[in-house]
């Protein structure tokens, strides 16, 4: 793709004339804005983008993107997207989905897409609630959640979406936050650059049914204490004054305070390309434990062939070995006889 053939786009080129039907204050706006901001920078002709979604507030995303868009049915966006990719590997297919859409009804398609490494970018809007159906708990809601269908508190242990994706064999796993615009855009660009399936959990606020679900991580004061930003080749440092770090302790991790002989050199250096996915898994589990921060950024970025490329080249292989199929010969194949 040469830069000269691609028009110069602005954010506006990716906006549609449709009224946006999200609640005022919804975190979805910020995600939409981030996507509309980075698409012009990718050097891809607009008509090559396809946004596929399931059903949910988040799944209305395609209507607001001036690209090709397919608002499919609940939970099935990964499969629709896989069909698109297998037919047209040249298209840039992004899936917009919610925690219910992709992890509840669509959980199976999500993990299968990830293991196959289909070249799809998945934006998982995680608001820990079913927004569109007005506030039932979701597979990412915290244990004990009081919601529409659980007036006495939910009893399900939530999924950790990052751990689940890693366990399923995802090659690219990242996380960002709706209101961390700069971080979100950078993360999206990294996802766009990744060859295979890119799974991006975006922590999103649903101010109507689950307001403040991520407050702990997003509030100005709490942020630096509760979030560690992963950067390739950099040590894991966090805290208001970058005074804390994470280092290995046996098989495990521990939080340490820098100083008193502890320096950045002692800390874990982030390597998103670590060939062993157990490393990314370890990071994904970190925040579940007292005192540890939640990681944001790219946990894992493994190079692996894209499914659609493998499919296409298998076809090319066979064609080059056997020649393009000849319909006449195909119909006549096997034992035949002639009746005069």
């Amino acid at each position: 793709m040469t830069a000269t053939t691609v028009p110069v786009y602005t954010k506006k080129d990716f906006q549609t004339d449709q009224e946006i039907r999200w609640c005022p204050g919804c975190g979805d706006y910020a995600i939409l804005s981030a996507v509309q901001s980075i698409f012009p920078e990718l050097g891809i002709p607009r008509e090559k983008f396809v946004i596929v979604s399931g059903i949910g507030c988040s799944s209305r995303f395609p209507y607001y993107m001036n690209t090709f868009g397919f608002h499919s049915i609940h939970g099935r966006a990964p499969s629709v997207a896989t069909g698109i990719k297998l037919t047209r590997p040249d298209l840039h297919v992004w899936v917009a989905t919610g925690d219910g859409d992709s992890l509840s009804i669509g959980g199976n398609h999500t993990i299968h897409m990830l293991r196959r490494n289909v070249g799809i970018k998945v934006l998982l809007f995680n608001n820990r609630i079913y927004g569109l159906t007005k506030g039932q708990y979701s597979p990412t809601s915290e244990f004990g959640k009081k919601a529409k269908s659980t007036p006495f508190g939910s009893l399900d242990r939530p999924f950790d979406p990052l751990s689940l994706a890693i366990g399923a064999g995802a090659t690219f796993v990242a996380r960002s936050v709706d209101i961390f615009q700069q971080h979100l855009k950078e993360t999206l660009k990294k996802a766009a650059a990744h060859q295979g399936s890119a799974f991006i959990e975006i922590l999103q606020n649903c101010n109507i049914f689950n307001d403040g679900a991520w407050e702990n991580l997003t509030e100005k004061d709490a942020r630096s204490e509760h979030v560690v930003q992963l950067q390739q080749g950099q040590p894991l440092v966090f805290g208001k004054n970058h005074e804390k770090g994470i280092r290995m302790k046996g098989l495990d991790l521990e939080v340490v305070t820098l100083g008193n002989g502890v320096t950045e050199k002692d800390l874990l250096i982030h390597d998103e390309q670590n060939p062993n996915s157990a490393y990314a898994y370890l990071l994904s589990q970190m925040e579940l434990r007292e005192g540890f921060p939640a990681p944001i950024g790219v946990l894992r970025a493994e190079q692996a062939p894209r499914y659609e490329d493998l499919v296409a080249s298998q076809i090319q292989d066979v064609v080059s070995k056997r020649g393009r199929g000849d319909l006449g010969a195909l119909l006549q194949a096997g034992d035949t006889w002639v009746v005069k």
Partner: protein
Amino acid sequence: MVTRTTDFRERKREVIDKAVIRFCGDSGDGMQITGSQFTNTVALYGNDLATFPDFPAEIRAPAGTLPGVSGYQVHFASTDVYTPGDAVDALVAMNPAALKVNLADLKPNGIVIVNVDSFKETDLRKAQMTSNPIEDHSLDAYRLFPIELTKLTRTALQELGLDAKTMDRCKNFFALGMCYWLYNRSMDATFRWLDDKFQGKPLLAEANKRAMRAGYSYCEATEAFQVSYEIPPARLAPGTYRNISGNTALALGFVTASQKAGIPLFLGSYPITPASDILHELSAFKNFGVITFQAEDEIAAVTSAIGASYSGALAITTTSGPGMALKTEALGLAAAVELPLVVCDIQRGGPSTGLPTKTEQADLLQALFGRNSEAPIPVLAAATPGDCFWVALEASRIAIKYMLPVIILSDGYLANGAEPWRIPALQDLPEIPVHFETNPDGFLPYSRDPQTLARPWAVPGTPGLEHRIGGLEKQDLSGNVNYEPLNHERMVHLRAAKVEAVAQEIPDAVPAGDPDGDLLIVAWGSTYGPVTAALKAQRAQGRRIGHVHLRYLNPLPKNLGEVLKRYRRILVPEMNMGQLVMVLRAKYLLDAQGYNKIQGRPFKQAEIEAKIEEMLASYSEQSAGARR
């Protein structure tokens, strides 16, 4: 029609016009291979034929037991063949269980070849038999040939240095050799097949060949049979023929459709009996650019196909009843977004998991109505194995032309059954024009072709056509989400009208047999064979009856109502509890009568004939009554 001649070996050689042979044995005995080899040979010889493979749902049920019996029936003739035959002329039974399960279908005085080596005490017990039928005279009504198949095969293979198990695996070829002798057939085609099949393992090829030759020679030498049979070639329409099963025909039909349309074929599928073979066949056609995607389930299969269709492929999905049930939500989506898609439901016995390897026609109403809300979809059904090819082509054509999903109904019997199929010349194949929209000027995703009501196929990647589609109700023309009452009603009607528009191309129903008369049989799908055979036989007896076989079940041929009215009675035989008959009664308000068989097996010709006679008799009675 039997002509007696005498062969050069001084044994009788009867020239007859047809025969029905059935190979049966344990699932592990290779009966499916034996049957299909025999089929292939008689087909190559030029007989018309029909086959009926019948096997258990288990991979290998316990050896020697009744549920483990596998059978393969071939009806071949010098005349037209419509069914695999109601009753069997010659039965090859490899063990007591097979004999027990199949004997009822053997004609009186029919030939029965049994492997005596497997009629030991334990074998009989496994088949729940208390005495040995070879000895207890219970087979006196038949021509019994008790052969030491195992022993004779081992003897024949002695020199090859194989272990006993491997030798025993060849005994079906001994039996096959015997049958080739019995029906005066050449072993050449099977020799070729063995060479091909055991390419890396010439010893196994040789073993099977020897076993087969030994069987043939055994008959030649021992004068086991006092008579052999010859069935001259059938007078089929001129052309090049091959033997074809329904699933193969579907696969070839779709490759052909894709080639004629000039767009890639995409199959999204999840394995299920008896549909899996379509996936298997198509996955081998990579050099035709066919993309086969074995999905994680049926829902992913159909939705991936919808994605492929959206992107410009000829997209299909194949399944059977339980899988079809899982696809219904997505079919509603396909209807709503108006994208071409072909769905094959290879029906099997139900409900639920039911009888996975048995045939049935009970998914018609599911195909017509099994979706939430109003989501009409054209439904086509294939009549014979070879017809599957044409139905695949036609369904693809309609899907693309009208931009909608189309359902094809086949069934387990068509899927696995085989018949000679005249290979079409390429120039005789219909064109399938495809128009991808490319013009952004005034582009509206839900504008419509005035004749077909099709919306434009605007695939992603086309500059200037960026647009959004989805499962929510959409505004006419623009396709934007819209919940207005009258727009919704309009869209529901437009989607229905588009399906109805297909009727403009459907050929008029032209009854076979009498164009009017006492009885019209209306049927669909795989009942074609027995109904056609029954019609012929009954008309030969002077009855005035006709037969309309519906390929298009939705919409129905425009003239159907008028045709129905030309007959005094209407009979609708179905392998279900009366599904098409319900549709016809509702639409035409005629007292069509169902005749229903739900046994996991096709109708017999005789059953249809008996029903015809019964209906005509009750009719004459009534008229007589009216006169009194």
